[in-house]
């Protein structure tokens, strides 16, 4: 089973990297980019028997730091 875990910064957490990317886009002449938030995507290949609870635990225990990040699980 293939999974895609998308980890994004929570609202209210400043993202200096996203800001730098936004400025770089502006520097390339792209106008109207109001905000950029950088995140991470993990592609996992797990046994079909892996439970939803275990997948959720993987996210909470390691893949995301829930102090600053949210995660979303997509099944491919």
């Amino acid at each position: 089973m293939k999974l895609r875990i998308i980890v994004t910064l929570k609202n209210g957490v400043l993202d200096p990297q996203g800001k730098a990317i936004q400025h770089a886009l502006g520097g390339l002449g792209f106008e109207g980019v109001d905000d950029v938030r950088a995140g991470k995507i993990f592609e996992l290949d797990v046994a079909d028997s892996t439970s939803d609870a275990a997948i959720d635990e993987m996210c909470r225990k390691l893949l995301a730091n829930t102090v600053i990040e949210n995660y979303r699980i997509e099944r491919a």
Partner: protein
Amino acid sequence: MKTAVIVFPGSNCDRDIAVALEAVTGTKPQMVWHGESALPSGLGLIALPGGFSYGDYLRCGAIAARSPVVQAVVEAADRGTPVIGICNGFQVLTETGLLPGALMRNSGLNFVCRDVPLTVDNSQSIFTSAYRAGEQITVPVAHHDGNFFADAETLDRIEGEGRVAFRYTHDINGSARNIAGLLNKAGNVLGMMPHPERRIEAAHGGTDGRKLFEGLLEAVS
């Protein structure tokens, strides 16, 4: 005092802290590899050193925080053993949950490597008892991810509980409320981005860091 330094793949301040601890305590610390599942007994201090544990993969300190030895460090901390995490060690401590908040990329995106002035905010802890409250000291920093973040409610709580040990006198990395060093609620765990182990003897340009270890030695012995 018996001490231990945890060594991860990618640690690079483990020898600095070992030299500092030996200079102050007179006893060589035990170097404990990350794959160990148990710590030596009777430790007066466990140190998590600076560096780039596991290459800073995933998030700084994230993989180290899940290593076998750090589970033993968390259990020792819960039993009251003093634990100090410096730089990457501070990042590891927040990732374990022993300390609140998170350390994010510096707001200016630059690696900041220089001496910085700090204010001693709480001089009552076992780590800061050799300093005066409000004393200004100079200690070097060397980090890319030292931007301390916690939500406003958490910040109010930790400030109210007197858990800010050190603050930057001015903003160097975007840290919330200029927090440079933070204690756990029980006061036996300290995380800090600046490197006190690099200010131990006059040849380092000052000895402001030495007092942290001297104060601790006196407090726990």
